[in-house]
């Protein structure tokens, strides 16, 4: 899968010193905004926080996949943050979170190809092997490589 089409290098932050869910949301939302994926940071943050109220977005082994569906999203894209220290976050295995994939989903989902890629990426994030390889990857290129492999069925 051409993971670069949904996850660009500019929307990745490694070993960030962020302390809370909100700080992570703000950081990743800003990346999406700077890269012209979304047209409004405020609107997107509202959508992400609304989704948080519905059900937990933490998966297993420190990975979370929050998402925002909003009219302010121009393209289906993913932003990724790897944190220095795990933070509190409701998750399936009750573990804190140190890797966050923020999914940006346009309101009128016509771009099924890319939505499908995002779904594939989310599925691959239940795999322990990928999770640990992502954790120990030394640079952004390696991350992209890993997710390329992971997305393949």
């Amino acid at each position, binding site marked *: 899968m051409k993971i670069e089409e949904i996850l660009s290098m500019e929307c990745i932050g490694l070993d960030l010193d962020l302390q809370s869910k909100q700080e992570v949301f703000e950081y990743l939302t800003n990346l999406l905004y700077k890269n012209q994926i979304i047209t409004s940071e405020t609107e997107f943050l509202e959508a992400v926080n609304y989704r948080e109220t*519905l*059900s937990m977005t933490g998966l297993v082994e420190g990975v979370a996949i929050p998402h925002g569906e909003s009219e302010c999203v121009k393209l289906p894209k993913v932003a990724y943050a790897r944190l220095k220290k795990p933070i509190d976050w409701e998750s*399936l295995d009750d573990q804190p979170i140190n890797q966050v994939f923020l999914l940006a989903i346009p309101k009128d989902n016509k771009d099924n190809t890319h*939505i499908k890629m995002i*779904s594939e990426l*989310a*599925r691959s994030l239940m795999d322990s092997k990928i999770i640990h390889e992502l954790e120990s990857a030394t640079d952004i290129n390696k991350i992209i490589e890993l997710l390329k492999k992971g997305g393949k069925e």
Partner: protein
Amino acid sequence: MNIVAITACTVGVAHTYIAQDRLIEAAKKRGHSIYVETQGTIGSENVLRAEDIKNADVVIFAADVAVSKEERFEGKLIVRVKSEVAIKQPDKLLEKIEQKMKEIK
């Protein structure tokens, strides 16, 4: 058991598909036959065939939103849970259903 299931979540991009994977994995492990239809934002995939629904002993809705075309399951035994339950404890969910089925029989 023959199981058919629908998975659906609020935004319909992630949990729908993870729930599908988890249910299939757990059902296979426990020796059941399962077909899972995903109702995501891109629409329904692996749409259940009338025959599979007819042969099903139980229907699982692992859904956080209304299931579309629910009328297909009229008269069937339906178990309704949140997608999170299917993702978090698919084994336990199936175990409970197995027990219930025994009681009914």
